């Protein structure tokens, strides 16, 4: 009942923000009108109050100019690097070199160059684009799920590599990408399980789980190392990133467990034997899910 009212209140606030009148909102829910009206009036007052805050016009112009100058300077730097290299050569020679370079590019040299890049580097978007291509050209669900799992883990490796000079935006970007990849694994795990059930096959889901389990332990160690290396201002952000990572892994392991339970009799629950912070003592037979359940700290908001 109360949950329904919260949804109705939210709908009405959305409608008010989009320009609907208070009366129109109340007419849609006459049975709740008495309770809704004072709350919607408070919401309208809050919104009207905040609208009195406006940026000074010169600030918007100044920031837009700064942002444009910064982007132009970056573009100029990229162009200058390219032009100065070919300036002294005849045009046919430069074209030949460009063609050769293009072939090399296609052959993967740029990928090799970009593979060590981190968020903020010029080559980082190339690396992400290459990952998207890899995913697009991986056709089996199992292959794709394992690739998603490895790409999620790669984000943590990058976080650890740049930890000594990391900022909150990079942590945010990497964590969000990791979550996306693990969500991809979760969706594919369902479809792998369904196929295994139809074809009476087995083993692919288990292999995926083992791969995830290895990544989970490695990533936990890496985030601990990253937190130790990070500047004081970023330590909390890395702790939050680790909590988010744990939650995402836990969700994947739960899904795999649910899928397995749907087609097999219930398995005995393995006994957790270790904590994620002590890599040396990790017992490879303990499920990460069990470890998360027993030793993961409260997930931060």
């Amino acid at each position: 009942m109360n949950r329904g009212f919260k949804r109705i209140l939210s709908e009405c606030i959305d409608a008010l923000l989009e320009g609907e009148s208070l009366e129109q909102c109340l007419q849609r829910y006459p049975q709740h009108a008495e309770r809704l009206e004072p709350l919607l009036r408070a919401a309208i007052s809050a919104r009207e109050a905040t609208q009195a805050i406006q940026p000074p016009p010169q600030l918007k112009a100044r920031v837009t100019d700064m942002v444009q100058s910064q982007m132009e300077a970056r573009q100029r730097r990229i162009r200058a690097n390219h032009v100065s290299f070919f300036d002294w050569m005849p045009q046919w020679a430069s074209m030949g070199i460009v063609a050769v370079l293009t072939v090399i590019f296609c052959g993967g040299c740029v990928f090799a160059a970009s593979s060590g890049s981190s968020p903020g580097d010029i080559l980082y978007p190339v690396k992400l684009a290459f990952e998207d291509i890899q995913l697009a050209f991986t056709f089996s669900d199992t292959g794709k799920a394992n690739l998603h799992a490895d790409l999620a883990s790669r984000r943590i490796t990058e976080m650890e590599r740049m930890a000594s000079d990391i900022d909150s935006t990079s942590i945010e970007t990497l964590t969000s990408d990791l979550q996306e990849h693990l969500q991809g694994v979760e969706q594919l795990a369902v479809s792998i399980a369904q196929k295994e059930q139809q074809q009476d096959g087995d083993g692919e889901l288990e292999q995926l789980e083992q791969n995830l389990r290895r990544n989970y332990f490695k990533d936990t160690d890496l985030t601990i190392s990253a937190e130790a290396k990070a500047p004081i201002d970023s330590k909390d952000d890395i702790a939050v990133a680790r909590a988010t990572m744990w939650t995402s892994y836990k969700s994947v392991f739960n899904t795999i467990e649910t899928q397995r339970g749907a087609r097999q009799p219930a398995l005995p629950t393995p006994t957790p034997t270790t904590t994620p912070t002590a890599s040396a003592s990790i017992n490879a037979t303990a499920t990460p899910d069990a470890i998360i359940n027993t030793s993961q700290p409260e997930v931060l908001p």
Partner: protein
Amino acid sequence: MHSEEELVRRAQQGDTEAFALLCEAHFDRIYRYVALKVRNRADAEDLTQQAFLKATEAIGSYRWKGLPFASWLFRIAHNQVVDHFRRVSKEGEVPLDEAITVAPDDPASITEQRMTVAQLAAACDQLSEAQREVIYLRFGSELSIAETAVVMGKRQGAIKALQHDAVVKLRRIVFQEDTGK
């Protein structure tokens, strides 16, 4: 007319005009969010500027899949504010600098509006941090429930519940203040 997705893609390829259009579209909302949090005009201007410059640097690594651009931008602004409060005092204890509000032509509405912003700020101090954040994002920046959920890293149901509790509490606080006068 360009879709936001197309503008983001062009900005990632170095199109300065596309990025300027994105800044223009979100500028007032970002400024209002930052100003409500820091409550000081100079800091609000500085942090808004830093948020957009940070977004310029990071635009290459933004990926459209599942994350609204506005949420990404607000996360950057939020992080700037968090870093700011780490350097200075605690959030919510800062008195409102009335210079953050505009000066309308009508002197009567100046008093009315400024009082209302001050009243809102004082009332928000009595809310929990998460409730205050929902008020700022929903009413100050007019973000949708889905966008607010991404910025705050919570589920949409949790945001609806926080919004309900915040509005109920806000009404109670403001109403009591009114009758107390």
